[in-house]
């Protein structure tokens, strides 16, 4: 399969990337790891006039502490995140989720910025970033803005990214001491995309759960935070009964995806099972 013709530009800096995007006035696409875009180009689902390659912009590839946040450059690969000691220390669900994406070849080149810009409902980063209270930093020729992950992911392959705008950074507040996080996933056996992926963050102090965050990938047409599960456990004792009761509330009141891997009722069941596994891992 051969893509349609396009021009190729490799940007050396964020400014250069933004001006290249502006020059092409909506007809250029950003190329990062290419592991969602190139398959789409090969199928000619997408036929942009130009690609602007940002993968080698060194200023977009870092994972560092920035005050009480961890800042991740958009061009950081899944492998960079899987092997980050800083993230392993503060938010272990990040390296854990990264290590479950696709396969080693995909993790070597696929990037977090590309994944969230693509917003595949079965991708792993969206739900993880919701549970992490992440902010997404966006930059365009007219300036910078920052959105809560909740306001960035708008639906099925849909985000708040505007034409000509780049995801430049993901910012994650460092959780309070005693907070644990996990990502548990039921993978599609061939691609390893999430049929159900559950990210959970809980702080347990003196046996009581607080700061409960539970978010899903793969279950609905977009990632979502599951307020019913969170409310059911917030302020409660970290016991197996309370975890089971909270997990039983999972995936209520949302539209559930259905395909030949998992029908609606089976997916709902999996969401409850994976919520229980995730909560047991962080609060059990």
């Amino acid at each position: 399969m051969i893509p349609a013709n396009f021009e190729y530009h490799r940007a050396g800096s964020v400014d250069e990337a933004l001006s290249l995007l502006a020059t092409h006035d909506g007809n250029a696409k950003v190329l990062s790891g290419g592991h969602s875009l190139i398959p789409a180009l090969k199928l000619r689902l997408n036929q942009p006039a130009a690609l602007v390659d940002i993968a080698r912009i060194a200023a977009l590839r870092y994972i560092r502490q920035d005050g009480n946040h961890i800042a991740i450059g958009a061009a950081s690969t899944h492998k960079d995140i899987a092997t980050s000691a800083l993230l392993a220390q503060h938010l272990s669900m990040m390296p854990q989720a990264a290590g479950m994406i696709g396969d080693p070849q995909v993790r070597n080149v696929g990037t977090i910025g590309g994944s969230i810009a693509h917003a595949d409902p079965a991708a792993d980063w969206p739900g993880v970033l919701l549970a992490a209270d992440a902010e997404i930093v966006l930059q365009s020729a007219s300036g910078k803005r920052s959105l809560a992950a909740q306001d960035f992911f708008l639906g099925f392959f849909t985000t708040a990214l505007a034409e000509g705008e780049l995801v430049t950074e993901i910012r994650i507040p460092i959780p309070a001491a005693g907070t644990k996080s996990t990502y548990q996933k039921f993978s599609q056996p061939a691609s390893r995309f999430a049929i159900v992926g559950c990210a959970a963050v809980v702080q347990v102090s003196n046996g009581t759960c607080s700061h409960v965050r539970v978010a899903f990938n793969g279950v609905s047409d977009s990632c979502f935070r599951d307020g019913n599960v969170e409310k059911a456990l917030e302020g409660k004792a970290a016991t197996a009964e309370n975890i089971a009761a909270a997990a039983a509330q999972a995936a209520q009141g949302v539209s559930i995806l259905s395909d030949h891997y998992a029908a609606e009722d089976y997916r709902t069941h999996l969401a409850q099972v994976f919520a229980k596994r995730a909560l047991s891992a962080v609060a059990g």
Partner: protein
Amino acid sequence: MSVKISVTINGKKYTSQVEPRQLLVYYLREALSLTGAHVGCDTSSCGACTVLIDGNAVKSCTTLAVQVDGTQVTTVEGLAKNGTLHPIQEGFRQEHGLQCGFCTPGMIMSAADLLQNNPNPSETEIRHALEGNFCRCTGYHNIVRSIQWAAKKLQETNAAVL
């Protein structure tokens, strides 16, 4: 409009004019006659097209030739030195790690990525490292043994993978 790229492949520098849409695997196979990287699925799934880019295993059917401008690429053709098989290749021979051989170059390049990062992998780690490579013949057991053979050989001889 074609673009000029310069890339070092198996230690040799190539400068070529390529169309931006040309996939790396076709650049290797058709422009340079390096036919070691195979096209199995052409949809990023099977790993038969795996090559190393700056030491990292990547599927060359999902990479544009323009993306490797200025990098070092290693294909299976670059592993044997002076007519002697690379220890990973020798491992596949000793442990009967191939039947039809179609998946083998990709398996070997994924093994090279693994052994650079993890010189003494467990069986489970080897199996995880091969998640992006499909074999339709062997059932994987002998591929795992081949990589164990290579890991042992590389350690005994204190040799670098690349």
